[in-house]
């Protein structure tokens, strides 16, 4: 059972961590671009 838990656990953890990392970068980039657009008058 521990092998099954390890296989599914590592897979789920890796996919969630990667997804969260991308989501955070996406939010940061969108915010930075929006701020720059506003400072340049849209």
């Amino acid at each position: 059972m521990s092998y099954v838990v390890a296989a599914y656990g590592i897979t789920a953890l890796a996919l969630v961590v990667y997804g969260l990392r991308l989501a955070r970068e996406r939010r940061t980039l969108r915010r930075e671009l929006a701020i720059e657009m506003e400072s340049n008058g849209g």
Partner: protein
Amino acid sequence: MQGPPADPIARAARRALPATGIVLAGLTVVYAWVVWNAPPDRVQGVIQKILYVHPPLAFAAYLGFLITGVAGALYLVRRDDAYDRLASAAAEVGVLFATLMLITGPIWARGTWGRWWSWDLRLTLTLLLWFVYVAYLLLRTFTEGSERIARFAAVYGIAGLAVIPLNYFAVQLSQGSIHPENLERGSLGPGMGLPFLLGVLTTLTAFLFLLALRVDVGELRARARARLERAWARGEAA
């Protein structure tokens, strides 16, 4: 966010994200429940349940590398950076799934064969496939934004496709491979078809969700880089 419109691929990825995310969440719950209640294998016991995650990870990795090759070919024909970004994004997500395939496989092997690894043809070619696309990512990481490297990466991504059929059919090609044969219709035991199907559907949906997210991030990175370059150019001119 206002500003210049994103390229059509990034726009499509952005639009697909919410729906794909909702489908993924629903599928994950059903998949977990079905795998938990799936009957244990008569020979291997509970460890056989790794079947519902290991081959689906391989299919998703293959899909990622296939998209890398096709998008690379389209980049060579049309010289549109959007295809180059798609190729790079698919390679990155594909390598993630291939890495997880290479982790879950040895875990399953340790529990059934009694050892983590065997240098038979299928496993060796899988490792080679992984190295081919890790090298692709390294190439992209150190040379981001270069058109010459983008062309080289496109050719490399297309050439890398040759390893996929070799890898898939390696079990048939090699005599006495320790790796089980590829699954065929009816080769699964009773009650194992549904969890396997759900495993494939959930993993491919997770792949598409992460790919859409990565494509969007890739386009935003390109826009941020372009703005930075314009700012530097203005600074130098002043």
